[in-house]
């Protein structure tokens, strides 16, 4: 097509105008865009600013509960911290120093001089009250079992507290407890009071909370760690649907998406900073109270029919590591040899199944729409090859949890928390308790397991610990009601300007060193 001189002039004029508009727009838009972003006051990794994180997680302000991983570290200070790299070198936090008695029968903790968000000082009485609450099985929630080694807590003076143990207790177990123990004012330390409002001394204070909508936190200027946190403000926005959360991230409505599914990783990797948290473990639980899994050989057979490599590849998108017993690779009780000696082997599974002489049919409960359905489908297909019919019954999440806690499921795939550096903490979960409250065995918890947990929780010397952990692994493998599948790291996708967001070894988000 030829262009006439007039057309040419018109085009030139249009081009000129368009270029001019673009240039003007860019000049006007640049400051506007930077003002619209929820970004930092200083760009390029500055030390102040605001970030907005999206999450689908529910909110609780009670640090004794576990479903508080997204925000609870912002409100509370714990007695000690661990490095975020998954190692267990204690870092003084709420406790300035601590000293174990020579016989490992007690520890004396000196609290740091600090204040709560209310302005009241942190005192030894708060620790004593907190220990009493943790010892109450009805109010201690997930801290109840880990507090079991403490006989008494005594306030020596205003900033010193002594914990007397029931018997000599290994340091790692005490440190894990200190790491999980939050400082809460004595007057506020009840489930009812902490249900609606946090009461801690952590790096951020609560500004606003609209349930299922948003949570706004502001920097605590009185935080013990001078200069931290770096952020001035953090806003959490709640999403009911994970795809909506990721869409919000991609549209720029939020600066980061927390605890997202592995399937998003590949797509978001180039445009966002992906942070893998320490995560939890995925475990296949079999209920020994209900046939057919009251048959130990049958449980062992199923344990050999779990194809961890395939689950990691196809369900976890290659993220995570295989586990056989319920210990993360960072645990001193992690025993990689079991992944070889008890590897996926359908012939071995078939032989065990034959020897078990048990029924060849079971139903697996699972929350519908979760990746656990796909894990069970892989296990189901493999079990079918050896003549075992595993039916999968997806349920609405609330109904599933009710059935799980009421011990009504024959088997399921569920998450188990990290047992840190104390293998005896494996007995925290309902399926793993050493008491008759155990939902897998009821009042028939194998005595060998009870003894092994007890031994792991009292072994002081490295040699004794090694022996105790080996015995604990052996009984878990022998009884085979909780077969490890893999670790499940948590996944965060963050705007590239955000740095320093980490999770602790329990997989709780820590924003103290985050910059935006």
């Amino acid at each position, binding site marked *: 097509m030829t262009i006439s001189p007039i057309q040419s002039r018109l085009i030139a004029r249009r081009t000129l105008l368009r270029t001019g508009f673009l240039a003007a727009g860019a000049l006007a838009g640049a400051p506007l865009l930077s003002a619209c972003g929820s970004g930092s006051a200083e760009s390029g990794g500055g030390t102040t600013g605001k970030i907005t994180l999206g999450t689908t997680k529910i909110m609780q302000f009670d640090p004794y509960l576990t479903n508080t991983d997204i925000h609870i570290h912002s409100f509370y200070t714990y007695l000690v911290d661990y490095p975020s790299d998954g190692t267990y070198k204690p870092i003084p936090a709420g406790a300035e120093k601590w000293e174990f008695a020579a016989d490992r029968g007690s520890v004396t903790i000196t609290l740091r001089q600090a204040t709560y968000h209310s302005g009241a000082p942190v005192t030894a009485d708060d620790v004593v009250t907190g220990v009493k609450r943790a010892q109450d099985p009805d109010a201690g929630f997930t801290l109840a079992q880990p507090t079991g080694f403490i006989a008494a807590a005594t306030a020596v003076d205003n900033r010193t507290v002594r914990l007397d143990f029931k018997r000599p207790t290994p340091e790692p177990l005490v440190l894990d407890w200190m790491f999980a123990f939050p400082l809460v004012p004595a007057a506020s330390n009840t489930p009812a009071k902490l249900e609606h409002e946090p009461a801690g001394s952590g790096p951020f204070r609560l500004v606003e909370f609209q349930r299922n909508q948003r949570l706004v936190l502001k920097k605590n200027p009185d935080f013990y760690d001078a200069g931290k946190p770096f952020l001035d403000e953090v806003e959490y926005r709640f999403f009911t649907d994970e*795809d909506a959360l990721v869409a919000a991230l991609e549209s720029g409505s939020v600066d980061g998406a927390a605890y997202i*599914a592995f*399937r998003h990783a*590949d*797509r978001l990797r180039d445009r966002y900073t992906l942070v893998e948290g320490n995560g939890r473990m995925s475990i296949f639980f079999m209920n020994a109270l209900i046939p057919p899994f009251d048959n130990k050989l049958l449980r062992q057979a199923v344990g050999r029919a779990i194809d961890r490599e395939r689950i990691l*590849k*196809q*369900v976890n998108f290659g993220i995570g590591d295989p586990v056989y017993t319920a210990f993360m690779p960072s645990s001193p009780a992690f025993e990689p040899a079991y992944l070889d000696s008890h590897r996926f082997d359908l012939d071995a599974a078939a032989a065990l199944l034959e020897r078990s002489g048990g029924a060849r049919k079971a139903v697996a409960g699972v929350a*519908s*729409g979760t990746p656990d*359905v*796909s894990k*069970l*489908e*892989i296990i*189901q*297909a493999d079990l*079918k090859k050896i003549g075992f019919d595993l*039916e*999968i*019954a*997806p*349920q*609405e999440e609330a*109904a599933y949890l009710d059935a799980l806690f009421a011990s009504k499921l024959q088997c399921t795939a569920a998450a188990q928390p990290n047992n840190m550096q104390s293998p005896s903490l494996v007995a925290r979960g309902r399926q793993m308790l050493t008491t008759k409250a155990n939902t897998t065995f009821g009042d028939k918890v194998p005595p060998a397991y009870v003894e092994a947990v007890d031994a792991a929780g009292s072994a002081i010397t490295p040699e004794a610990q090694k022996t105790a952990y080996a015995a604990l692994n052996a009984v878990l493998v022998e009884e085979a009601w909780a077969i490890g599948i893999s670790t499940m790291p948590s996944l965060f996708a963050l705007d590239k300007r955000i740095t320093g967001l980490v999770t602790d070894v329990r997989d709780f988000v820590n924003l103290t060193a985050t910059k935006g």
Partner: protein
Amino acid sequence: MSTAPNAPTPAPRRRLASLRRFARSRSAVAGAAGLLVLAALALFAPLVAPFDPAAQDGEPLLGPSGAHLLGTDQLGRDILSRLIYGARASLVAAAGAAAVGAGIGVPLGLLAGYLGRWVDAVAMRLVDLLLAVPGILLALVIIVVLGPGRLNLILAIGIGAVPEFARLTRVATLSIRDRDFVLAARGMGASTPDTMVRTVLPNVLGPIVIQLVVTASMAVVVEAGLTFLGLGTPPPAPSWGGMLQDARSYLYQSPSYGLFPGLCLVATVFCLDRIGRGLQLAVSGSGPHVAARVTTGGAV
């Protein structure tokens, strides 16, 4: 058998005329043909499907290829085979739900329309109760109470369809219960049940048949919806709704994965809709009954 002396048109002739009217609608014939093909595929799935739909033998999330015409899903299963087998879940749910809805709703409407008075009042209040709860919510509640499973799914959808059948049958019955041929049947000594079943019912069947098709069409969608929510056909049995749910998680890795079950759903509903339209044409003016209004949306 009691025979109405002044019935306007003999049944065989009426049926033939209706069939001719149906055949004149090309889209209805195309819909019927499409549904027949689908039904044949579902019925002969083991012969037609290239792979076992539960076999996790392939590489996951493969695109369409010679080996797997429509690719593979996240567990390496052949999507085409799962689509073919998945037609079973949809068609069984459609037929089952329509049968449950009609099986309860038609007798209820017939009794209410023919007997009237307190029977009518009680039946219609029951129907009002069912109508007061949105269909999908009713189905969800039934599934949560009875538990997931194919039979419970059919019951849940079918019970939601009862009000439409009951009201439709009642209206049609009311319109003919005092007609001469019905009075004649009664006059010749036919009992009330006999009159209802042998004289009234055959003359109200037209709109009921259309409602059956409409209900089947909606059942396909609701079955897919409930399975999408994880409350329908349990895994590993293939279902188009379940495949859509899985595909949703892998839209970026395998965009074509979700396309195929979606297309199957659209095509099936389209076929049923065309058949329904054709039946509407066929039924209108083909008998002594009043061309009753057939509900065409939002019933389930």
